């Protein structure tokens, strides 16, 4: 399967996750979101950028519990809770935000 962004074709898996981590750029993220009828706001970008930094440092996508705690620490308590994160990413914060961040599905993702 493939996703077309500005004339370039990117390989994605059957669930729409980017096949190659290095293919990611902000336009690709927006296109991945558009494929789900979602639009990315600054609040979404905060989480997506956080996930990319986390992956760069630890080579994994964090489990949702770990993500929630870490977001709270980095961006403040009002954002480090599942209500806030589920409002931004209704399909599940770890799953959906990882997808737009171009990361593999979180290990042990629920």
């Amino acid at each position, binding site marked *: 399967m493939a996703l077309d962004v500005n004339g370039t074709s990117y390989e994605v898996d059957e669930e729409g996750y980017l096949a190659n981590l290095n293919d990611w750029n902000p336009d690709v993220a927006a296109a991945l979101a558009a494929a789900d009828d979602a639009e990315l706001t600054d609040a979404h970008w905060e989480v997506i950028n956080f996930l990319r930094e986390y992956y760069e*440092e*630890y*080579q*994994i996508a*964090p*489990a949702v519990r*770990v993500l929630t*705690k870490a977001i709270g620490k980095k961006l403040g308590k009002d954002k480090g809770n599942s209500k806030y994160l589920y409002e931004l990413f209704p399909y599940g914060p770890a799953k959906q935000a990882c997808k737009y961040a171009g990361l593999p599905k979180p290990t*042990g993702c*629920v």
Partner: protein
Amino acid sequence: MSDTKKFVYINRKAPYGTVYALESLEVVLIGAAFEQEVQLVFVDDGVYQLTKGQDTDGIGMKNFSKTYSALGDYDVNQIYVDEQSLKDRGLTMDDLQELTYEDEDDDWAEKSSMKLVNREQLADLISDADVLLNF
């Protein structure tokens, strides 16, 4: 009676040459969601999993040594390293990465997750385990 069980992971293989080390790490991360007590033991060639400065660019494999530092975030903070295994391999604790966690009950103070153990202590860890997982 508590529902919490003590899961002890025994890691005895070097990374990259076989898939055991990575498999173990993935099981630990998935298992961490179940909020059980988790202890990781690194013995025999397992101590090589924790060496500092791993760089896998030359062998074209993912450098998962970076992932061990995320274990603290997953509340996995009891990591035991066998002293004799280090010694047999010409290594010391200084050759290993420092793994830490933030103690929620102590104003999030950063503390070491690692402990050097002898065979007697290792015997206790094994005999006190509810569930033993070997990799």
